[in-house]
């Protein structure tokens, strides 16, 4: 089955620093999405980016489909960015099943 690996597993930053999260997947993805989960909270969709570069606020995602990798860049981190970031992929575009990565736990210290 499909596998999705994320790195690093955890990351500690000082407020204001930038973060770079990586996601590698084992098969070609036509759906690639980044999610955020606050401790004890639900999953919130951040960016849908199956290819190319997408921006929203302080977030930038770059997906290179042929190389089966995606990254999420968080600029000027804030303490409220602390939580777990997941990438999730789906090989087809049927919309019926996401395979999630192992997650990156981010802690931003004041």
């Amino acid at each position, binding site marked *: 089955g499909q596998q999705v690996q994320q790195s690093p597993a955890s990351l500690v930053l000082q407020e204001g620093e930038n973060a770079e999260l990586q996601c590698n997947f084992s098969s070609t993805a*036509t*759906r690639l*999405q980044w*999610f955020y*989960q606050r401790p004890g*909270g*639900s*999953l*919130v*969709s951040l960016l*849908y980016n*199956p290819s190319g570069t997408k921006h929203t606020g302080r977030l930038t995602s770059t997906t290179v489909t042929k190389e089966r990798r995606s990254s999420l860049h968080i600029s000027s981190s804030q303490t409220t960015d602390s939580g*777990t970031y*997941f990438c*999730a992929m789906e090989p087809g*575009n*049927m*919309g*019926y*099943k*996401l*395979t*999630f990565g*192992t*997650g990156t736990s981010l802690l931003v210290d004041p």
Partner: protein
Amino acid sequence: ETAVFQTPNYHVTQVGNEVSFNCKQTLGHDTMYWYKQDSKKLLKIMFSYNNKQLIVNETVPRRFSPQSSDKAHLNLRIKSVEPEDSAVYLCASSSGQNANSDYTFGSGTRLLVI
């Protein structure tokens, strides 16, 4: 308010009991899902329904059974719970085949089996 609503938020039960979790979405989506998140935060798909039809049924113990009365509701029943069923169960919905993903998750049901 348009969202995905799950009940209960938290449930504690003993081994061997039966539990049911409810999920409702008011987003007009065609597809609904159940995901399981374990203690290590690993997320795995359990079931997917599209317009009340079962589309995805992963390798899940037979004591788990999803139930969909219409495309806005997807419940999950667990007969005779086991300790390894302790987890957070997340319900989600989406437009399904719409490439501009609109995956929306509920707040989850945390199950503790003692």
